[in-house]
């Protein structure tokens, strides 16, 4: 059994990409197509006093120009928020604004033209007069007395307050603590920067009144639902949403965006197919951004190093409007993770979701969990310093022991399985941690700034039990659909509601189904990303595709097997209990005599001819399952990083990076390693290079790839990846999800390493990213200035 699962099958999707045949939305072109371009606000907060579109409309090649009023009058609804915690204040978010812009990049007017160049010219020709209004950009400053209001009706710019944990136990821990370490830190704004800029295309069939929308989405079904129920108003049955090949998402392509409404609306209005493709600059200032927390926290412990309590207060910047899942991220995906991998009786966290004149903030790779990990892992290092303890040793002392699983934390989650001590010792062995410390001592003796960082991190993946999500504020469920359709020839089409945008589902899910049925992987095709072909599904984010989507397919494959077995028994004229389904070959045969059997193909054919089926059995061989997970899954990781900071240029050089992860059972080791490597470099980017920076007046200062420094190939010397496996006990594959763990662990491990390197200079904290300038300033401030 299991010919494919657990092996590094080469990706079946690759041939099209390496030959330039990827089917991205920007490649869709129809004769007679109009090209849409959008006038964006250059102001962060302003009243619009005049819009003059006449010059643009008069230009040769311009087909139409629309303002916010046209969309309103044309029946477009505002963008809804799909996650509401108690008493959330939701500002109205129109598709195109009518009288006021709230962040740089807000959409002001729309052009449709014969070519993209003409559309861009016409956008330039639209005249808009703005009367600037006061701005606020800072997560915590937004709540200050007298701060400008982003939306007049929302007091103190507070969208919501939320808290979780055992406050009493927390207070007790601090009252009785021997030692307390405190930190105030910023988890900076990030811009996800998938390499494919967002895009949308649409075609309207006036005769059938059917609309097809192509969009760069991680979840086409929820987008169809939102388009139908809230924004565009075309019935779901008449609306087909296709997410073809999507060039990376990292969370930013989960959400419902204005352009997904604008493009189909324009296509119907002008009676021609329409397409919009964001420029990079446009993507950077309109894709929902990530992180942006200000946090004050303290950790209580006994003198011998046992953690007893954690108290956290966070101000989470939500931007100018609530993006689709915005309130989820700093609440149920952040506060719930504050226990980390540690036993701590008194954890309590509260968060204030604030509105500012910045681009909306929502999930970005890790989403809430990296913010929790960075905070906890920085505090643990500060604790180690305070106690004079080795940071690895202190982590091992406090780690939840493996016999305590399932482990109930004080902040709602029930961790499914894990072995954090083995994770850390594996990482330490792999990195030769003792040798690294030795080398550090020698380097320090030579006056070099060498540092070693270590972390142990937790993630909650595989969202989510629908009832739990509902109780926490979700407007939707988080089950997944999976259909296994066996054709009469025995070929198999697999339809998954999850969506791949780099993760390789066409390979991994085929591995799963091929093993379940015992058929060659070549005979299994995986279909995703098209509401016209696939059952309603929730899409891909939160490292959920294998745990939830894969599990749905296992359930469907089980149903296929059961039916095939019955047909086989019937044709072999044997009792069902006397035959077996051989999962190596897909054959059904009489127990003990493998030769007297029927092939999978024969049985599939028999299911369709229906000439001789068991009494009462329906023809066909096609099953759908909707799998609602029993719990989240809890991947974990221990990473170790060795750095040197140059005392001339204050540049950080990573010498070694060792990652040991536990993502449960692994379906395809090659793909899992790739996910971890990619995730790690994104996390290192947050630690060293990336920041979505705003000026006080709300200008995005890092809106192009010139200023927004995503990691390049030479940022790391290489990554050593290893793993342990503690299977998740509650899904049939034992998988936990591999998409985000790397990102979550990488930021704190690099930060810990750099601060360890700078410890001899008395530097204890620097806000990310750890650029040479910031390091130099911190070193000066610590009294090392010449």
């Amino acid at each position: 059994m299991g010919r494919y699962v657990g092996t590094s099958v080469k990706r079946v999707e690759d041939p099209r990409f390496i030959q330039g045949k990827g089917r991205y939305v920007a490649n869709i072109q129809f004769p007679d197509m109009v090209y849409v371009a959008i006038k964006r606000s250059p102001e962060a907060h302003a009243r619009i006093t005049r819009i003059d579109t006449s010059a643009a409309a008069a230009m040769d090649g311009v087909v139409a120009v629309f303002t916010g009023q046209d969309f309103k009058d044309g029946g477009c609804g505002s963008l809804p928020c799909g996650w509401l915690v108690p008493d959330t204040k939701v500002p109205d978010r129109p598709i195109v604004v009518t009288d006021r812009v709230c962040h740089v990049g807000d959409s002001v007017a729309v052009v449709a033209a014969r070519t993209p160049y003409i559309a861009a010219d016409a956008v330039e020709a639209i005249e808009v007069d703005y009367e600037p209004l006061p701005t606020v950009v800072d997560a915590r400053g937004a709540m200050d007395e007298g701060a400008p209001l982003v939306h007049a009706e929302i007091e103190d710019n507070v969208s919501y307050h939320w808290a979780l944990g055992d406050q009493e136990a927390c207070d007790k821990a601090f009252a009785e603590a021997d030692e307390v370490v405190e930190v105030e830190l910023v988890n900076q704004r990030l811009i996800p920067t998938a390499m494919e800029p967002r895009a949308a295309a649409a075609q309207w069939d006036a005769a059938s009144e059917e609309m097809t929308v192509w969009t760069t989405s991680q979840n086409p079904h929820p987008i169809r639902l939102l388009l139908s129920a809230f924004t565009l108003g075309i019935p779901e049955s008449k609306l087909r949403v296709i997410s073809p090949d999507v060039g990376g998402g990292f969370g930013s392509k989960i959400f419902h965006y204005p352009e997904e409404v604008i493009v189909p609306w324009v296509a119907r209005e002008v009676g021609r197919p329409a397409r919009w493709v964001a420029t990079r600059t446009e993507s950077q200032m309109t894709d929902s951004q990530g992180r942006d927390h200000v946090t004050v926290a303290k950790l209580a412990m006994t003198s011998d190093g046992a953690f007893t309590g954690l108290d956290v207060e966070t101000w989470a910047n939500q931007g100018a409007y609530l993006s689709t899942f915005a309130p989820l991220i700093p609440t149920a995906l952040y506060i719930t993770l504050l226990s980390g991998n540690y036993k701590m009786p008194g954890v309590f966290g509260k968060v204030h979701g604030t509105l500012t004149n910045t681009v909306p903030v929502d999930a970005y790779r890790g989403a809430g969990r990296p913010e929790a990990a960075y905070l906890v892992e920085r505090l643990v290092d500060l604790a180690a310093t305070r106690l004079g303890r080795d940071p690895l040793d202190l982590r091992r002392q406090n780690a939840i022991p493996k016999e305590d699983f399932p482990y109930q934390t004080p902040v709602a989650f029930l961790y499914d399985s894990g072995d954090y001590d083995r994770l850390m010792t594996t990482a330490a062995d792999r990195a030769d941690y003792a040798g690294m410390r030795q080398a550090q001592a020698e380097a320090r003796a030579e006056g070099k700034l060498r540092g070693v960082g270590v972390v142990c991190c937790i993630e909650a993946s595989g969202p989510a039990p629908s009832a739990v999500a509902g109780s926490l504020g979700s407007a939707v469920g988080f089950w997944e659909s999976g259909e296994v359709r066996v054709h009469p020839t025995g070929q198999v089409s697999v339809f998954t509601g999850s969506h791949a945008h780099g993760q390789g589902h066409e390979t991994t899910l085929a591995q799963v189904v091929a093993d379940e049925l015992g058929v060659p992987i070549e005979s299994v095709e995986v279909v995703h990303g098209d509401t016209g072909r696939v059952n309603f599904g929730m899409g891909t984010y939160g490292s959920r595709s294998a745990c939830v989507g894969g599990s749905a397919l296992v359930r469907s494959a089980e149903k296929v097997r059961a039916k095939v077995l019955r047909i086989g028994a019937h044709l072999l004229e044997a009792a069902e209990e006397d035959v077996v389904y051989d999962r190596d070959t897909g054959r059904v045969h009489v127990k003990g005599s493998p030769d007297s059997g029927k092939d999978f193909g024969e049985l599939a054919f028999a299911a369709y001819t229906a000439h001789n089926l068991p009494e009462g059995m329906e023809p066909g061989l096609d099953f759908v399952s909707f799998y609602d997970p029993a719990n989240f899954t809890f991947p974990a990781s221990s990473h170790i990083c060795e750095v040197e900071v140059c005392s001339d240029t204050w540049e950080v050089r990573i010498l070694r990076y060792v990652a040991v992860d536990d993502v449960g059972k692994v379906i395809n080791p090659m793909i899992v390693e790739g996910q971890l490597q990619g995730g790690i470099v994104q996390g290192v980017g947050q630690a060293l290079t990336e920041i979505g920076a705003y000026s006080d007046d709300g200008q995005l200062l890092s809106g192009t790839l010139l200023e927004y420094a995503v990691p390049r190939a030479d940022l790391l010397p290489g990554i050593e990846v290893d793993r342990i496996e503690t299977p998740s006990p509650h899904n049939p594959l034992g998988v936990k999800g591999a998409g985000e763990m790397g990102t979550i662990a990488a930021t704190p491990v690099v930060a810990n390493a750099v601060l360890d390197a700078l410890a001899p200079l008395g530097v204890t904290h620097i806000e990310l990213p750890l650029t040479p300038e910031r390091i130099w300033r911190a070193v000066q401030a610590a009294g090392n200035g010449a």
Partner: protein
Amino acid sequence: MRHRVCLTVNGKAEEFDVEPRLLLCHLLRAYVGLTGTNIGCDTSQCGSCTVLMDGKAVKSCTVLAVQADGSEVTTIEGLAGADGLHSVQQSFWDNHGLQCGFCTPGMIMTAVEILDRNPDASDADVRHGLEGNICRCTGYENIVKSIVAAGARQS
């Protein structure tokens, strides 16, 4: 004002009537219909749009179509001969050198030039050679591995 531009794209000579401001990447994608050349930025940072112009890797978003007049352009679609995949393409497939695939055409075209100059390129050489190309998915590990392996196979 329009200009006539003669180009050989993937071995086929073609003539176009273009605006002077038309970028080569747009000519390739919209006029020739070769959408394998992706556009990932507007500041010449990402390298997704890299093609070979007279054998040299160029960012086609940074070349005007009129500047390419008279040159030979090879895009990802024209890289392989009739016998299947180019060795760099094969190596990307073998070594999991891509995830979402968006940066991939540009990475492969850049890799071809890196290996043209030095088939024995080391890990560090390749990392340096990729300074003009961004991948957000892979963390570069397997891209570097793919290119080094392709070089080893070539030399």
